[in-house]
């Protein structure tokens, strides 16, 4: 059961990564990237590394997304 969930999460990661690369809308890509980081942090919690999980949730999903949003607000949302 747990193994199945983990497999699903891993699959989700790959799908997210491909979608991030494919989406034309940069804002959506950033949100999906945040989801990717969040799932990554859940996986790390599953692997019993809570320190890394909490840091990734705060820095990878939180701070990095915020920085991306700040940059997008100045450079335009759509890929030409």
């Amino acid at each position, binding site marked *: 059961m747990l193994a199945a969930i983990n497999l699903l999460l891993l699959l989700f990661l790959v799908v997210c990564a491909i979608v991030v690369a494919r989406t034309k809308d940069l804002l959506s890509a950033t949100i999906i990237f945040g989801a990717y980081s969040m799932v990554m942090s859940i996986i790390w919690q599953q692997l019993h590394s809570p320190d890394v999980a909490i840091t990734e949730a*705060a820095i990878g999903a*939180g701070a990095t997304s915020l920085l991306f949003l700040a940059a997008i607000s100045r450079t335009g949302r759509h890929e030409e």
Partner: protein
Amino acid sequence: MHDMILEMLGRILIPATQLFGAYILFHGHLSPGGGFSGGTIIGASFIFYSLVYRFSDKKHRLKHETSLWFEVGGALIYVGSGLVGILFGRHFLTNQGVFPIGEPGRLWSSGMILLVTLGIGAKVAGTVFKLFQELLEGGAEPDGHH
């Protein structure tokens, strides 16, 4: 322009976030977390604060000097506690035998680890806030670019 909903949300959420960040920071040596995650959470609360009040009031904005002192102070605490080890005749960044280690499991234990965690927390909080602010509006002034 006042945004009532944002301000009310901010009044509740900002202290809650800061409390959570401080918990993670202070318990870095006892539970998951530590300087980097706790500092980022506190920094995020600063970001929220500046976003809520940015349009309404100039005096609520964090000054550049404040975040600079946060960063430099944190870094100096780190290097300083490393040099203390040399002053005591041990090695750089020595904890055992230089700082009081205390009883494992208590909040006030583990000597340098707690001190340095707090330093890193201050530094990271300042850094995250500063990075966001710079990316959002740094150099936007007409004289900011030649």
